[in-house]
């Protein structure tokens, strides 16, 4: 005996099993990211002192947003192709979705690497320097960035005060360094939230890539065995993908723009 309603919907609910399962899963994901955003709101409103703003590259973030939206379109087209019985078209669009997803991750890892090569240095003489690492030896640290004696200016990088600072090559003798750190999660609470939220989002993307990859490759053999059930799987995968996009709709403005 086969489990019923895997392809045809159940009459009284109008749904097939996988769709019910997926929406339940998505409900739990809403609570997961909702919990994270609650944490963000609480930590930001309760924060004393300036909150980092403009630390992330908006053009890159916007580009990634467009990548994700495009992948949503191609995912939907893939499903539509299945519905119309066009396997090759499905393969093409599904493949495009995969590639766009991998592109998103690639851009993200570029951003992450950029964070890890960006340093914040506080000297004993009260100067704060912030920039990309050029060289680090036993005797000195060389950054390409800005320096100021008023650390507060470095927080809001959209402000006029920050924009007045010159970007130059700064050499700091190691003996003068009070604190040095790259933009890893523990530098400040904003970065902790950035790494946590985008990290979890990226993990969900990777999960999606694995599922999409499976459905594009070995899983696509179901097309010949049970076409309707396979189409439903593509629909479900697409729904999950749109959800990943939905989370990004919130993540991008909150972390990059606010």
């Amino acid at each position, binding site marked *: 005996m086969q489990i019923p309603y895997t392809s045809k919907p159940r009459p009284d609910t109008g749904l097939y099993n996988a*769709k019910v399962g997926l929406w*339940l899963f998505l*409900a739990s994901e809403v609570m997961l990211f909702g919990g994270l*955003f*609650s944490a963000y*709101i*609480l930590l930001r409103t309760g924060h004393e002192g300036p909150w980092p703003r403009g630390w992330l590259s908006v053009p890159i973030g*916007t580009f990634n947003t467009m990548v994700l939206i495009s992948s949503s*379109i191609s995912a939907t087209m893939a499903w539509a192709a299945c519905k119309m019985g066009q396997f090759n078209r499905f393969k093409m669009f599904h493949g495009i979705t995969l590639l766009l997803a991998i592109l998103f991750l690639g851009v993200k890892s570029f951003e992450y690497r950029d964070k890890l090569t960006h340093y914040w240095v506080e000297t004993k003489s009260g100067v704060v320097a912030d920039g990309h690492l050029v060289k680090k030896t036993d005797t000195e640290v060389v950054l390409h960035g800005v320096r100021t004696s008023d650390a507060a200016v470095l927080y809001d990088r959209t402000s006029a005060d920050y924009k007045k600072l010159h970007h130059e090559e700064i050499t700091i003798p190691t003996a003068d360094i009070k604190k040095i750190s790259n933009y890893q999660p523990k530098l400040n609470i904003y970065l902790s939230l950035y790494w946590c939220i985008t990290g979890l989002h990226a993990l969900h993307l990777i999960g999606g890539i694995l599922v999409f990859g499976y459905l594009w490759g070995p899983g696509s053999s179901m097309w010949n065995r049970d076409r309707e059930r396979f189409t439903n799987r593509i629909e479900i995968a697409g729904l999950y993908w749109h959800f990943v996009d939905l989370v990004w709709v919130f993540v991008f403005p909150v972390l990059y723009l606010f």
Partner: protein
Amino acid sequence: MSDSTVDLNVRRYVMVSVTIAVAALLVVGISLMDFGNHRINIGLSLVVIAVQAALVLGFMMHLFSEKKLIYSVLGFTGFFLVFLMFLILWAYGEVPDRARTQHVTKPVAEQSTPH
């Protein structure tokens, strides 16, 4: 599902996606404008984001044409999420005095202790 209905839907999906993309650019634009108070930027952006979210949920995830059961699951989820957010923030802000903004900078050992 007939070919033509699917075709029509595809066009609609594309239009909706383009709208979502435009909205994203709008949010970027709002962030660049100066309204005096930063909170206004955030507030306006949230409105646009809400519309974006509604478009993704409603059209791309075809929630607008989905069955009642799914609506009720999401309705409860939304209610609990709002409560989670709202109650945490309310509890945090609503304290007997301003004690939460004070913090100790001297290590405990330096202060006098009862035992």
